[in-house]
């Protein structure tokens, strides 16, 4: 078998293919159909869900010498990536040349740029506000961690240093790497701001990275040594924690650490993976298993349950996020029929509303057809 044989056979097969020529009207008609689907689906639906949308800055060029004008935005503006389109919280849309099957994280910065971490190619991509690719960065870990106000995103670069990308600044800046033994890769647990990142080994949060270095000296007094920070409240006062599971636990417990009192002020072993609501009054939790989420629950600041999300029989929760302080966005997939929908629930898990779909999609064990911004 030679390359020549192979080339010859491909050409021979292809040369026999003759289809009915497509006219311009054929293509334009299909384009309009795609456009309608995009608009009627992602854009209109999500825009309706996030009724009190935060007005993001106008789409900017984003690649001039002076960078991008920053425009602070309150938290809570969840964006949705579906079928190659990112729909921002204000309903504006941008096409991205990415496939959800390859995407592990999405972050929309306040200057409109979209930061995507990919499984294939294993990298971080930064897209300009107009959807064009600004840059692709090789990484050690394809995870993006964003600050609570979406002004900053950070990742672990290929050379183990941390890269921090701020809204309004064209290029990411380099920060020291996560202190880890050997060539182990550490995680960025939380981005407090561009100059303060909480990092650890993926199990516990143990150090703070600043422009000057990385070390445990910056960690708060009495921070538990068996906990990892999973989220930071919008006002920065509370850190959501995940404790190392004990011998008889599968998932471990969660808690809240108060930076005013330097104590764990709430603890629960009935929920997992907490993220704060946009107003900081509630937290959303669930158990991540096999790329899906079980027991989606909303709790208050005492970590007491407020409500839980129940999907139809035969369907599962793929991803969850806060739509606004009073509503959840949930990507739901049918295990039997492969039909996906974007649904909205009230805080207490009631009033389910299908805001997009159902549409055909992939196996939820392998893909999230609706990816929500971090």
């Amino acid at each position, binding site marked *: *078998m*030679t*390359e020549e*044989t*192979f*080339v*010859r*056979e*491909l*050409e*021979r*097969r*292809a*040369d026999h*293919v*003759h*289809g*009915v*020529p*497509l006219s*311009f009207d*054929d*293509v*334009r008609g*299909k*384009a309009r*159909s*795609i*456009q309608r689907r995009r608009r009627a689906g992602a854009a209109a639906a999500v825009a309706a869900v996030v009724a009190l949308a935060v007005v993001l800055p106008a789409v900017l060029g984003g690649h001039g010498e002076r960078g991008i004008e920053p425009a602070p935005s309150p938290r809570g503006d969840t964006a949705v990536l579906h*079928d*190659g389109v990112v729909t921002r919280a204000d309903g504006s849309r941008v*096409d991205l*040349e990415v*496939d959800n*099957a390859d995407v592990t994280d999405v972050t929309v910065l306040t200057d409109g740029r979209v930061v995507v971490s990919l499984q*294939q*190619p294993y990298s971080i991509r930064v897209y300009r506000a*107009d959807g*064009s690719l600004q840059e*692709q960065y090789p990484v050690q870990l394809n995870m993006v961690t964003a600050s609570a106000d979406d002004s900053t995103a950070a990742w672990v670069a290929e050379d183990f240093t941390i890269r921090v990308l701020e809204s309004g600044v064209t290029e990411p800046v380099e920060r020291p790497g996560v202190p880890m033994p050997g060539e182990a890769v550490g995680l960025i647990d939380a981005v407090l701001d561009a100059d303060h990142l909480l990092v650890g080994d993926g199990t516990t949060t143990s150090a703070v990275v600043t422009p000057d270095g990385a070390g445990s000296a910056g960690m708060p007094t009495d921070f538990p040594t068996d906990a990892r920070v999973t989220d930071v409240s919008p006002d920065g006062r509370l850190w959501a924690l995940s404790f190392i599971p004990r011998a008889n636990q599968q998932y471990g417990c969660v808690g809240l650490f108060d930076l005013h009192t330097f104590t764990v002020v709430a603890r629960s072993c009935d929920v997992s993976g907490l993220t704060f609501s946009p107003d900081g009054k509630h937290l959303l939790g669930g158990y991540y298993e096999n790329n899906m989420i079980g027991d989606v629950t909303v709790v208050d600041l005492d970590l007491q349950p407020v409500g839980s999300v129940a999907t139809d029989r035969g369907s599962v929760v793929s991803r969850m996020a806060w739509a606004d302080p009073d509503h959840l966005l949930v990507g739901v997939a049918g295990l039997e*029929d*492969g039909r996906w929908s974007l649904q909205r629930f009230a805080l207490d898990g009631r009033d389910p509303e299908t805001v997009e779909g159902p549409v*055909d*999609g*992939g*196996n939820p064990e*392998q*893909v999230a057809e609706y990816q929500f911004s971090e």
Partner: protein
Amino acid sequence: MDRDTDFTAYLEARQARLLRTAYLLTGDQHQAEDLLQTSLAKLYLAWDRVRDRGSVDAYVRRIMVNENNSMWRRPWKRRETAHETLPDTVPVIDTYDEGVGAAVWAIVQTLPRRARAVVVLRYYEQLSEAETAEVLGISVGTVKSQTSRALASLRERTPAELSPSDRPTFGEEE
């Protein structure tokens, strides 16, 4: 030239070739026609920001590859799997090449979709490794390794009796 006239000129000039590429990617004429129409429609939507870059072909190839992967995933039960064994069929013996072509084609169709995209772009579209990497959004190293793996797979899985290297060449025949 206005937008639609410009696009129509591209459509008329390139669609026959693009359909052939789509066929090699999908292995099925109907799927290829669907893939081509959808890809051209997406190209049309992005025409204003693509046409002035001089890389329209690269853009539409990329759409085709991504769209082909997406089409295959819907519905998810059809998710691709790479097969280690060939379908148990009798190879069609072409008179001119003693069945080598049919055997090669059967093997190509068992390659994983992404690997198939690499070899189609490299050996049918005659793109360089760098150009292939650009279209697929992967590294040149990945293109090299996938190409090498695909060719090795083709060599390993071509029935020995159909492999040209195992057949006597002129002068060796008794």
